[in-house]
């Protein structure tokens, strides 16, 4: 069976964050960015990434566009929409409060 993906429920946050820093990135780029930035601690499986991308696109957080690359091949790149920026804010603060809550538990017990 597959290894569990990046922490449950954080995939959206990671994708949104990466796209906010590096707009117009394609699927592979996003995957690579997660790996690099986390010093290879976090991994996103392709099997989860693409459905998530389409889902976020449907929700209107990101939009996609086909671009022509230097190699002549077409690639589909993603960027944040205004709704996506707002969502990123929500997810970030949700993560902050969740992780600080967990830290608190770890400290006090």
């Amino acid at each position, binding site marked *: 069976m597959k290894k569990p993906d990046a922490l449950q429920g954080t995939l959206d946050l990671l994708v949104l964050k990466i796209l906010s820093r590096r707009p117009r990135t394609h699927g592979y780029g996003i995957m690579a960015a997660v790996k690099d930035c986390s010093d290879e601690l976090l991994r996103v499986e392709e099997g989860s990434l693409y459905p998530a991308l389409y889902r976020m696109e449907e929700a209107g957080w990101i939009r996609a566009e086909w671009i022509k690359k230097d190699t002549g091949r077409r690639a*589909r790149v993603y960027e944040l929409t205004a709704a996506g920026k707002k969502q990123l804010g929500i997810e970030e603060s949700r993560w902050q409060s969740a992780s600080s809550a967990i830290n608190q538990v770890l400290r006090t017990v």
Partner: protein
Amino acid sequence: MSLWSRIVNAVRSEQLSREIAEEMESHIAEAVEHGRDPDEARRALGRSYEQRQQRESSYEIRTLGWLELLRADVLFGWKQLKRNKVTSIVAILSLALAMGACIGAFRLMDALLWRPLPVANAERLYAISREAFTPEGKLVRSDIWPYPSFSLMRDAVKDQAELLAVSTADRRDLTYGSDAEMEKANVQYVSGAMFQAFGLKPALGRLLVEDDDRTPGSHPYAVLSYDYWTQRFGHDPQIVGKTLRIGKDIYEITGVVNEPFTGTEPGTMTDLFLPAMMHPAVTRSDVGWVRPLVLVKQGTTLEPLRQKLSATSRAFDEERIKGFSSADKKSLRWILDVTLLIQPAGAGVSNLQDEYRKALSILGVLVAMVLLIACANVANLKMAQSAMRSREMALRVAIGAGRGRLVQMLLVENAMLAVLAAGLGALFAWQSAPLVVSMIQSSDTPVRLLLYTDWRVLGFGVALVFCVLLLFGVLPALRASAVKPVSALKGGDDDPNSRRRLMHGLIAAQVAFCFLVIFMSGLFVRTFESLSHKPLGFSPENLLLLDVVTPQGQLPVVWDQIADKLRSVPGVERVAIASSPLLSGAAWNNFVSVGGAAPSSIAAYLLAISPGWSETMKIPLLDGRDFRSGDATPGQAIVNQSFVKTFLDGKNPIGKTFQEEENHFQVVGLIADAPYGNLRDPIVPVAYIPFHEVNAQGVAQLETQETFLVRTSGSDPLALASVLRKTIPQARAGFRVTDLRTQSDLVRAQTVRERLLAMLAAFFSFVALLLAAIGLYGVLSYSVQQREREFGIRIAVGARVADIAWQATSRILLMVMMGAVIGAALGIASVRYVETLLYGVKGSDPLMLTGPALALLAIALLSALPVIVRASRIDPKIMLRAE
């Protein structure tokens, strides 16, 4: 992603799949560029199975799943419909016919009976009428009042309601120039206040106002309807201020009322609106012509209003009856013992409505039954079809299709049938409804019904599709989807018996409705036959009727000279003059006193005629003599047999005397009975009197209008029409033909409604029979197919063909008989609803019940025949080998 782009995606699904695939490919290429192993990268996207699933889930997000499924279902359904071409065509055609008939009937009924008038406050509009029993015990109803009575009622209820005076819309002669250019238009007298009360706006000029309701005879203004302005004047903007003449009165056109108001009488388009004050009888208490419309104020309760109106009307009548000197007071009581009714009139008030309300409702019920038959039929076809498809369904269930999916798939298929049928039916209705309207008009009453095609009709159509789908589509879909895969895949139907029971039930229902339709149509056909074959007592063939006027009036001798002139036209056999033709609807009656006794309680009818009238009409003179040129009114009279029976105890009438008002008559002749005003009523007592009228001093009176009756020798009386039309003004200047028709037309006009009902009912019973035959055949052949193996075995062990035939058909024949019995019971129960429309036929007549029974039996045998042949030809060897 917007809903729109998802809908678009659903439609361009292939492209979407390609795009997803392309994105995956570009992902792999990227990975390879970064030094990953191509195979490993491909694997990272998932094994082929997962990859496809992933693609599918990606894909589903990007389309509307259900829409995509729907599209697939539609395509698949279309394929199915095409595969079963014959079944589909039969289903679509029978549904289309039935739905078309329903939509057509709805359009007619909506236009005539239900559609609110295009006025403000139509929902607060009511009409009043009076009901009473005559001394003979007949219930009569009237909705007309004399204007003075109306005006008292209007004042009495001023606080609760506004009463508007409206006359019937009549065809009148009028001219915009000289008398030579007389033409006809529909004229309606209305309260000036009506336009404002209805919130109507002028398209041009001004409409009538309340001030036009003040003084009798002094508001000579006319308002045109938009339609008439368009048709007659081509939108002439200069029309305001022009004048027209009706009779002796000159009217000034003040304006044009805006679309779409065409008067308050559905079926008749009013061309000209005149102020009620200009009606010739506006001051008379003894002439009823106002049809009051009651515009109830908000918050008024009807019952107190009705009582107030009733009391006022009665007080007026009591006052009026005091003036009656000649009549028996007791026999006049019934005039006062009336019930005043108040009924919603938002859809207007017209004679056409009264005459056709019931007939159309019954037609509506008949078409609804035909629709039920068609639905039962198609449901059966579908059910038999789904039996053939049970393997397919089972396979679908086995590979994981949910029941919901199957129902959706089948429903989509059925909905396509319904929608196709509705489209075809709409075309049919579009053509047939105007045809029916053209059938109910006769030459002198042009019916113009605006048949709309708008949201009302569309809404009805959509509702109809849903109803039909519910009736024929849901049950078979539910049944077909309820397959148990194991038994179906093993080759057997899961429960053929329950399926067959359902089909048999539907057959019984279908036969019951079919019986009812044929039974009703039999009653209507018989009614039409007995009316149209009723002995007339005169001969209508080759009889032309020319209504002639001379506005200033002429002496009777001049009229006689014109008759002589007409006699000299080649092809004319006989000519006579009468004040009106028989069966024209015109009636003149009064109480008479015989031999100096008190006035009778029964009214006698009168008709003014010239010498030679009975000969021209071919009514036998039974005793005495015809009129001579010297006979005059008052003076001599000829009476019919009913007159003798009613007033003279059946004794020889010659030489007897009677009195009508102040006029004394002596009977000089007796002629045979003939219908006077109406074919349906019993023959009335008639006194024929000379049209030569003299006053008390014996001076001949001027006559302004008479009817010439011309009997021609040729087979087509109308061939002489144009010659005769020209002869009259040539014979004498100032005389003019205002109407020309044949006596046969008048006879036919008496049976227009009956003919319409008979024709349409006969058509629908033909359709019903046809549908029943198709349905029976379908079910029979299905059941034989289901039992082929069983029959094969039976034959192999020695069953005879007759046994097999009986086996194959007995249960269905039983269903037919059950259906027929139910249908007969329904027919007998419903006959009293149509009684008023029947003539010369009783619903309880056993003959009327055997007809449909025989027809159904014949149809059942006919549709069973090919199936029996097929059952008997089963070759047990082939059959059993195949197993």
